[in-house]
């Protein structure tokens, strides 16, 4: 048997992201799961494994054993389990599923990313939940928050490369512009640089609108082995490869405050292993958990020169009609960031762009696409490469 090289996405399903107070975590999971099954015409019985990406069900709703819970309420009785890698949970679940198919142990599997954050309404509880992705003993106890750590990266980047506060805010403006074109996005309102900079301070120089909001949502994809995929889709969209990179969990343990070394490692390996360059990437979904995160991410991914992420954003290089559109979905910022669901939502945006169904945010002439997700302040990075057959 020929060794499997690629894995196709043959079905997708996703709820709108936002405050979904009327639904249980099992409800939103089912909405995504059944939409994915319908869109692929795959029968539930053919799902050989269910991978659930979720960060904080333990903190948000006192629920673990999430694989079993989702299986029970969805009727997908395959082996199932939760994968937790902080905000990268969905992306790590997708990568694990992809790797399992390549190892030839599976033909068709399902990946679900889900998070129900609005079960927690108190700000300190939310801070606590998000802080579990950091080094809780030696960062959080010392006063670190996600906002503080990204603020430190922002200050370092501004000093080292001359990145301006306005350029950082422009990331938010751009992503809200894109989100306004996405029916499933949490936010459809437009923002200005002034509104971002005048919003409530979080940690200097970052403000409330530089950060993602609390969000509920579920997103699901069905993956199939290359040889199986063509029975479901004559023009499948493939995950060509997915790499995971490492950096120490605490920001203070890292050599650089202005790059995501795990992201850089994963992206460089992708380019090398597939003999492609950054010029072959037509667009990318990146982890903009804070505005500055997108600037550092596109540099570490090699999509723009190091130090020029802010300038590229200001000049429109990363806009929908720019040279390399970034976060056409609106990103974590505007599409919404239900933590464990974001990695899958990124894959769905990539899929829709390839299929030409992204409507007002459609990118033209797509060659390859990339998605990038991180856990914590950047300790865990996953970079995934997508393309068509041949």
């Amino acid at each position, binding site marked *: 048997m020929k060794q499997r090289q690629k894995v196709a996405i043959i079905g997708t399903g996703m709820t709108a992201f936002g405050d979904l107070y009327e639904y249980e975590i099992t409800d939103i999971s089912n909405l995504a799961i059944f939409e994915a099954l319908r869109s692929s015409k795959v029968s539930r019985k053919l799902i050989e494994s269910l991978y659930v990406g979720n960060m904080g069900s333990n903190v948000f709703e006192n629920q673990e054993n999430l694989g079993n819970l989702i299986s029970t309420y969805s009727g997908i009785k395959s082996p199932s389990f939760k994968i937790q890698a902080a905000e990268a949970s969905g992306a790590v679940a997708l990568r694990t599923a992809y790797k399992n198919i390549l190892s030839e142990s599976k033909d068709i599997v399902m990946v679900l990313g889900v998070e129900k954050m609005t079960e927690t309404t108190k*700000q*300190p*509880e939310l*801070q*606590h939940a998000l*802080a579990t992705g950091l080094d809780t*003993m*030696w*960062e*959080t*106890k*010392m*006063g*670190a*928050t996600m*906002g*503080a750590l990204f*603020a*430190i990266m922002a*200050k*370092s980047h501004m*000093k080292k490369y001359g990145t301006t506060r306005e350029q950082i805010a422009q990331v938010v403006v751009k992503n809200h512009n894109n989100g306004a074109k996405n029916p499933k996005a949490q936010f459809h309102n437009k923002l200005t640089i002034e509104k971002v900079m005048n919003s*409530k*301070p*979080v*940690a*200097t120089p970052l403000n409330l609108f530089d950060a993602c909001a609390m969000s509920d949502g579920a997103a699901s994809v069905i993956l199939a082995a290359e040889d199986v995929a063509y029975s479901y889709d004559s023009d499948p969209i493939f995950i060509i490869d997915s790499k995971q990179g490492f950096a120490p969990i*605490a*920001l*203070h*343990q890292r050599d650089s*405050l202005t790059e995501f070394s795990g992201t850089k490692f994963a992206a460089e390996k992708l380019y090398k292993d597939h003999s492609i360059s950054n010029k072959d990437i037509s667009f990318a979904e990146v982890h903009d958990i804070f505005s500055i995160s997108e600037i550092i991410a596109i540099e570490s991914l090699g999509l723009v020169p190091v130090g020029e992420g802010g300038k590229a954003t200001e000049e429109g290089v990363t806009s929908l009609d720019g040279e390399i559109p970034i976060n056409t979905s609106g990103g974590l910022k505007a599409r919404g960031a239900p933590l464990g669901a974001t990695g899958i939502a990124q894959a769905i945006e990539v899929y829709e762009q390839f299929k030409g169904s992204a409507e007002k945010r459609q990118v033209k002439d797509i060659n390859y696409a990339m998605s990038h997700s991180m856990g914590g302040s950047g300790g865990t990075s996953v970079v995934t490469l997508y393309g068509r057959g041949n």
Partner: protein
Amino acid sequence: MGVAQSWRTQSSRYRLAGSKCNECKNYYFPVTVVCSNCESDNLEVINFKGTGKLVEWTRVDEGASGFDHVVPYYFAIIQLDEGVRLSAQLVSVMDESKITDGMPVRMTFRKLMESTREGIIEYGFKAEPVNPI
């Protein structure tokens, strides 16, 4: 922090105890049982001198869980003279505009927070400027 964790980490929180690898001479904070550089378990516990410099800082207006009553506060990354970096609050700052990059700091023993799950009052280190600002 649980009772056992609080007890176990006292030396690092109270006296800046860390580890020095006797094989590759790498320093670690906090105390560790194995060298992640050379995989040796031949490490000795040392106390860092507690002086260093400010690498980067931010004023936190939306605080971490348990810190919401002390906002705004300064959160910083410190590099100790031995080369190791750590996270700490920056205290004893009277004038924010006088905080400078690379500013000399020393670690000082302070209360970290009052109430936790186990009802422990937690103490540990914070950083303060060597030259009053």
